[in-house]
């Protein structure tokens, strides 16, 4: 009798756990179903290549697409080399001392700083103090700083997968530390570092809060012509189209289309990174690592 009731409880409990996971999966299905079914209708070549027309009630999202591309590239140019350098310091040079622990604590804390606070920091530092103005450069740098913890962590993980034996082998042959890192560590770590960088950058591409005041513009008919121009961005455009436009209901299809393009963009980047990582792992096994 007792064994029987505990079996029923186990059965119920497991179904409760399954329901939790099912609920999570359901959320994802709803999100994608809603956006794809309602957004796919408006997607066309014109939508992707035209600027918004007629008071943003018609036309496409071309300037926003280009703006997001530019600002993401700048974020990557800042975050990737800095992230790699910091990871090289931590994994190859740093000793386990108080300073190193402080650096690691800073990284964990930076990854928890709210994106809107990065926005405030960007306004004070890049827009004002550095005199970048509200511009692609200021917004890109702000996003870059926000991405930094991700690129550092990913780069360090990539460095950790390189066997110690490669470093020792080179050092025992009289290589200097830098020769061993440059010749026998980085070539095997860089693909993994870049995979992580893409993951970080894909997040930057979808962020809105840090660019709200650092350079994103409501509407610009032309694509930006320098890094000091303001720009339109996909996530900001979606925000505008769903809350700030004078006729929100009329432009709803455009908002759905923008949301669809945005998630497709983010997930293409993600997928690229996942495929790269998968290939790397397979190669890693073939190398007997």
């Amino acid at each position, binding site marked *: 009798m007792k064994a029987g009731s505990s079996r029923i409880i186990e059965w119920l409990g497991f179904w409760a756990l399954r329901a939790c996971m099912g609920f999570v999966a359901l959320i994802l299905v709803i999100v994608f179903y809603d956006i794809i079914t309602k957004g796919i209708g408006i997607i066309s070549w014109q939508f992707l290549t035209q600027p918004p027309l007629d008071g943003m009630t018609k036309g496409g999202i071309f300037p926003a697409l280009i703006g997001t591309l530019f600002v993401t590239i700048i974020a990557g140019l800042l975050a990737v080399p800095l992230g790699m350098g910091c990871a090289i310091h931590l994994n190859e040079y740093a000793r386990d001392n108080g300073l190193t622990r402080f650096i690691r604590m800073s990284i964990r804390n930076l990854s928890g700083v709210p994106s809107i606070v990065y926005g405030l920091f960007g306004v004070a530092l890049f827009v004002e103090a550095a005199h970048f103005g509200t511009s692609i450069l200021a917004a890109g740098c702000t996003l870059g700083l926000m991405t930094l913890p991700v690129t550092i962590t990913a780069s360090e993980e990539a460095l950790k997968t390189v*066997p110690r034996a*490669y*470093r*020792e*082998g080179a050092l*025992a*042959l*009289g*290589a200097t530390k830098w020769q061993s890192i440059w*010749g026998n560590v980085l070539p095997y770590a860089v693909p993994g570092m870049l995979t992580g960088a893409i993951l970080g950058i894909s997040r930057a591409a979808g962020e809105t809060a840090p660019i709200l005041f650092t350079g994103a513009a409501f509407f610009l008919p032309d694509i930006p012509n320098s890094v000091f121009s303001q720009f339109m961005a996909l996530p900001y455009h979606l925000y505008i189209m769903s809350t700030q436009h004078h006729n929100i209901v009329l432009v709803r299809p455009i908002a759905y289309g923008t949301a669809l393009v945005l998630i497709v963009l983010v997930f293409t980047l993600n997928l690229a990174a996942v495929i790269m990582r998968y290939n790397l792992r397979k190669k890693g096994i073939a190398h007997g690592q």
Partner: protein
Amino acid sequence: MDNKIRMKAENVDFFYGRQQALKGIHLDIASNAVTAIIGPSGCGKSTFIRLLNRMHELVPNAVLTGRILLDGKDIIAPDVDAVDLRRRVGMVFQKPNPFPKSIFENVAYGLQINGMKDKGKIEERVIESLKKAALWDEVKHRLHDSALGMSGGQQQRLCIARCLAIEPEVILFDEPCASLDPISTHKVEALILELKKDYTIVIVTHNMQQAARVSDYTGFFYMGEMVEFGRTEVMFTRPRDKRTEDYITGRFG
């Protein structure tokens, strides 16, 4: 001793953090001879051999006191560059560790980082090293294949060739046959005997038969101390210390 003393450890203590790994080691390493270091695992033999080319510096919190001399000069002294030292004192590791490059590039690597640019010279030296390592006949038609496609024994001889290419004076072998099959082991041992004509060799091994086969001198390490040192044939036939006798007769370890 019959041979000239090449390296010398004087009163060496070594710590990992607070933990003492080696206690008061005195050891003479003779030129053009093979010196074996034996002992049960954890006795400090691998720790010791890594001091001889300062590979211990890769471990954080490592503390070394005492002196280690090469040709009478203290190699631990702060004015000695570890990089220069490692070009004179080469090392072959427990597990073959070829770089994931071609066979040729593996051997050429040490030359390139030492600043050799002349392609003809590099090629000459690579071939010479592969021949010395008794590997040339097996790989001469596939020099540009990946080194990772070789057998374990070939990989280990490649690592020896890689080490020979930079013309060291002393070669340290850290359990070089630990991961090899008997045939490959035999080849590597034959090679070591051949190499002692030109080099000073130190080998760490947990295999007593191997020490008996290849070495001229043997030191027995036990719990961080060197219990006994002497000519190999003497040590294996008439050990002075009870612990040495127990070890070589297989009563522990």
